[in-house]
């Protein structure tokens, strides 16, 4: 697949994510709950990693910290060369728009917009002219195999197609890293397989760094590295089954 929009990131052992001694508490005083307890994590550029663990283990919280939508109670999170704790809300928003592509469990497309318009949403934050935005949207939808559904609204799409549109939205601005929170959690097996295959393609052909939270061992097997969290602590790292 030749696509000019997505810069093919060179696979390297350079870390794109550095998490150092990160703690995250919710609440204060006696009611404080520690969700992450001194996490150290390094993710190399071009990696495809899965974060697994039981409910409440802190995997989504860790993903949110790396995506810059939450802040640690203590410790450092550095992603794509930027230490996130020093950024203001506005700076963090700008940073996210350049470096993070987020894929949600429930797709979260805007129902009043077509597939193409949903994918275009991140590009409205750039100064790209309309024609260039349109070109990029078409490319992103071509990558996810939905070029022929550009003008369909989310209601006119299946769950798997919606998630593919969400992935197109996540990659359209060519982010440094894709974070996916249970991307197959709301899909049937076949659609889930297609989404995992798509993520694998993005990783292998375009060198996109992908961090995926999942409960599903089968889904985690598509990742190159599987990390397990339990009670806020990283307890195991292993190679993925098919990677």
């Amino acid at each position, binding site marked *: 697949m030749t696509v000019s929009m997505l810069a093919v990131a060179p696979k390297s052992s350079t870390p794109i994510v550095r998490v150092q001694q990160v703690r995250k508490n919710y609440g204060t005083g006696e009611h404080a709950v520690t969700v992450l307890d001194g996490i150290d994590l390094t993710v190399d550029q071009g990696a495809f990693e899965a974060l697994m663990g039981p409910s409440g283990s802190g995997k989504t919280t860790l993903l949110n910290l790396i995506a810059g*939508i939450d802040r640690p109670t203590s410790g450092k999170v550095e992603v794509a060369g930027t230490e996130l704790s020093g950024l203001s809300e506005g700076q963090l928003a*700008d940073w*996210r*728009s350049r470096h993070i592509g987020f894929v*949600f469990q429930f797709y979260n497309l805007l129902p009043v*917009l077509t597939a193409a*318009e949903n994918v*275009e*949403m*991140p590009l409205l934050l750039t100064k790209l002219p309309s024609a260039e935005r349109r070109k990029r949207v078409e490319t992103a939808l071509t990558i996810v195999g939905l070029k022929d559904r550009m003008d369909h609204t989310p209601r006119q799409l299946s769950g798997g197609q919606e998630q593919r549109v969400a992935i197109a939205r996540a990659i359209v601005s060519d982010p440094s890293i894709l974070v996916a929170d249970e991307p197959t959690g709301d899909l049937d097996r076949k659609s889930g397989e297609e989404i995992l295959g798509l993520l694998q393609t993005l990783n292998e052909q375009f060198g996109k760094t992908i961090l995926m939270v999942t409960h599903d061992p089968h889904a985690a097997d598509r990742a190159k590295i599987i990390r397990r969290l339990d009670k806020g602590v990283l307890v195991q790292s292993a190679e993925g089954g098919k990677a």
Partner: protein
Amino acid sequence: MTLPSLAFRNALLRNKTRAILTLLAVAALVLAFVFLRTVVSAFFEGPANAHSDRLAVRNRISLVVPLPLADFDKIKAVPGVTSVTYSNWFGGVYIEPRNFFAQFAVDPASYFDVYNDVQIDPAELATFKTDRTGCLLGEKLAPKYGFKKGDTIKLKGAIYPGDWSFKVDGIFKSTDPFMDQSMLFQWKYLDSAQAADRQGYVGTYSVTVADASRGPEVAKAIDTVFASSAYETRTESEKTFILGFINGSSAIIGALETVSFVLLVIMLLILGNTLSMALRERTNELAVLRTLGYRPGQLMSLALQEGVWLSLIGGVLGALVSPPIVKGFAINTQGFINGELVWRWVGPALGIALTMGILASLWPAYRASKIDIVQALRRIE
């Protein structure tokens, strides 16, 4: 795709029933606001059209107590007075009371010196001056009832009992919309029909002064002339004189003004409630936009634009339907309300609706911009 177009779709396409009801509510409130303000404006139209160099002289006791015609020359002799005329309010009924229009018994020899803004064909004026039962009609009154030159108008006297006939001698035009819907006839015709002991009295005198800035001084001088007489006078500017009528309706006007402002508060609450509900339902989407990199200010702007679209479209709807509805109502008031005044309020009402839309959106928009992304996303799952 642009953010204003997203705001437009959010405002109108998310929940179409709610959007339509909100738009209709805003349109109805704009219509009601324009309607009430037009009615209030109609009350103040007279004072607004008053001439600063004109004074009105009436009996100090009450407007319904007349003044002797003999005062005419005394008033004219007061320094600063340039012309004087007199008139009586006739109050006749044309067929039935709902066909209201003003009728004044005037002195043709002096009336047009004081009311020099009245335009009339000289030949028609000449006829009127010599025609004891003749009358002149304002240019908007004549077509309203299909009166033409040469027609006979029959009125039933209310203040001056009896059946009265007038021949239309001509049509005049005035800068005062009220006068354009009025009728003038010979004061002598009215006076000669009165009992001998009631002859020689006028309702009010109208006076012009050489220097409008010296009006209060001249008014005081006129009242001094008649002080301690049997017919003491109260002289005031034409504007104050007309406002005196309005003061009698001040409670009604006050109520109309209050209600018109209450309408704005209702508009604020309706728009605020709609936007609060709409944004609360979309908390997850707002969180997604924040995740994509939208700044809090951009979410606030998006939410404000929703309010602007709702108020603008509702406002335009209201502004479009207001003129025909208000004018239709004005026609039914038989000229008491000048329907053309509605245009004064259409533009401001639209601006007010827009302002209300922005004000109503401020708090919901601010709250939308301050959402906690993680909490909002957790709510979905």
